[in-house]
């Protein structure tokens, strides 16, 4: 087992003929992912990836023809609202949005739509998901993780690679690694993923990689203290980051004084979580 993606995943790539979409589709396939379809409006009927993957004009026709159950989105920010909505309307079980720079208003609308849907959205601005040895969806380099029993959940991209690399150097393997995305408004939270890992038979321990800003880590610390059964190790980036040039009062009214790295670290420690001093320090704490 693992969470979210595995050998059985039937992947659809939205934006498969774009530069990023095509390059990463090749990479995903090399890592064992079963790509069953691509969508590029206007190119329906063509084939890509050695003429083995059919392209469709709409997600709906692609799902009907191929039984795709997971979609990854590589379309430009301008068109991402449309692409995510289309995937939700086509009842994709899981939608992973790699695109960065999507307007917050578009994501607020998507979140509102998701409240009445069963689809799970990961991202946007996510590096994707990897279940080593089985499948990878997104842009995480495939060769930096070994199969194993450590779950990884992160808000960051390259920092996640750094941690995966450190685990591999220490011969520690990963069940699944999930990049939830660095934007303010995202589909799935730390808690959503932590609870999946808690129920996953193949995951024994979890690493959480957070950073300054927002209040998601604070809520995760509370969840770990009260509900989570498996041990968690955390790393929080941004102890030295300069304070943001904040303006207006609404942010502080909503989020209170939370958000600093030290505050997050303290809350994790109180929740019984070991907190690493730097990324390469993580394997020793497992």
């Amino acid at each position, binding site marked *: 087992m693992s969470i979210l993606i595995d050998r059985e995943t039937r992947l659809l790539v939205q934006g498969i003929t774009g530069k990023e979409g095509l390059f990463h589709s090749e990479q995903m396939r090399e890592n064992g992912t079963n790509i069953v379809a691509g969508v590029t409006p206007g190119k329906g009927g063509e084939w890509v990836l050695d003429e083995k993957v059919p392209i469709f004009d709409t997600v709906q026709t692609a799902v009907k023809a191929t039984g795709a159950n997971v979609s990854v989105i590589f379309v430009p920010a301008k068109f991402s609202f449309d692409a995510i909505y289309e995937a939700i309307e086509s009842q994709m079980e899981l939608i992973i949005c790699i695109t960065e720079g999507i307007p917050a208003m578009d994501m607020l*609308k998507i979140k509102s739509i998701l409240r009445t849907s069963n689809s799970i959205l990961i991202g946007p601005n996510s590096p994707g998901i990897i279940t080593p040895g089985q499948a990878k969806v997104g842009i995480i380099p495939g060769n930096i993780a070994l199969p194993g029993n450590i779950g990884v959940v992160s808000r*960051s*991209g390259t920092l996640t690679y*750094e941690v995966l*690399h450190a685990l591999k150097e220490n011969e520690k393997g990963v069940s699944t690694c999930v990049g939830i995305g660095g934007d303010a408004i995202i589909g799935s939270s730390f808690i959503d993923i932590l609870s999946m890992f808690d129920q996953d038979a193949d995951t024994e321990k979890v690493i959480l990689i957070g950073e300054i800003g927002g209040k998601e880590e604070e809520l995760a610390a509370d969840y770990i203290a009260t509900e989570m059964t498996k041990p968690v190790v955390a790393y929080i980036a*941004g102890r030295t980051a300069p304070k943001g040039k904040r303006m207006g009062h609404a942010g502080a009214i*909503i989020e209170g004084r939370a958000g600093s790295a030290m505050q997050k670290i303290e809350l994790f420690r109180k929740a019984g979580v070991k907190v690493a*001093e730097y990324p390469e320090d993580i394997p020793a704490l497992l």
Partner: protein
Amino acid sequence: MKIQEYQVKQIFSKYEIPTPKGQVALNASYVEQIAEDLGDKIVIKAQVLVGGRGKAGGIRLANSPDEAEEIATEMMGMEINGFPIHKVLVEEAVDIQQELYLGIATDRLQASPVIIASSYGGMDIEETAEEAPEKVSRVQIDPLVGLCDFQIRCLAVSIDLSRKHWRRFTQIANALWEIYESYDASLVEINPLVISEGNGLMALDGKMTIDDNALFRHPELADLRDLDMENPYEIEAQKYGISYIHMPGNIGCLVNGAGLAMATMDILKLKGGEPANFLDIGGGASAEKVSSAFRILLSDEKVSAILVNIFGGITRCDEIAQGITIAMEEQKKIKIPIVVRLAGTNAEEGYKILEKRKLPVGHSLTEAAQLAINLVVGKKL
């Protein structure tokens, strides 16, 4: 993108939110002219995008047009938090009966827009929110539905707003929502929203932040940006799509990805070094972008070593190495050491390109950080 109070008030006027009479001035003599038409009590407000303006002497009262000009002259020579004052807003003074707060913002945790109101507006609203949260009311807005009148009534009731102000309050709240939505704002705030002598509700101050990701939908807003309010290096960096924040240390950092850039700064500090900046070159950076990043780093005279930490995913390490080579050739006078750590996509190819340069190499993040710190020992901060 944050915009100035006078710009926010121009938008308010367009949406029929009442504001005090007034005008913006770029020089003190024009202040006198504006003041002539405003009566004998005049407010001069420095237009800067930093907090604590009132306490720093950036809001002052004048009793005549002459005095207004005098005050403006003084103000225009001042700085607030390092930002020079180039514009002042000249307004009629308003007799205030009560100060309220009204704003719409994006609530990250609820992933929803939220409208916030309080009958305890003014400078201390944050403390009020923390110490007496019952005095601050908030209602979530479904962006697919918009703000509804009943929600505004709920707010009015919960802040004990006198019924005679309800109509105006509803009109102002609806206008704020329209502004939030049509400008892709992440914040639009009236603080204080005052009940004035005789004139009912009025926006005495306004703040607004526009979502940078949505600027492509609003090309007309580019003109509202005030470059005087931004650090010149940061503006230069933005031109190349680089995120750069200046810091007081002496080790320049060049990293891909914001999280990794922060982690790199953190480890420097942890091991006893001082980072000179946060610099994220973004994903898939070209050689040209890397050499621009070097120019920005080297323009800070305090930088006495540079630490390049790249974990390639979309970014290719050979492309980064090319960029370093270009930068070293462009700027023959680079006298300071450059520590390089490459990992991930095409790292070996990258190291091969740099072989001849004989740069110090760190094979892990920790090792690279330690090398950079050793190289600046004895260099002043």
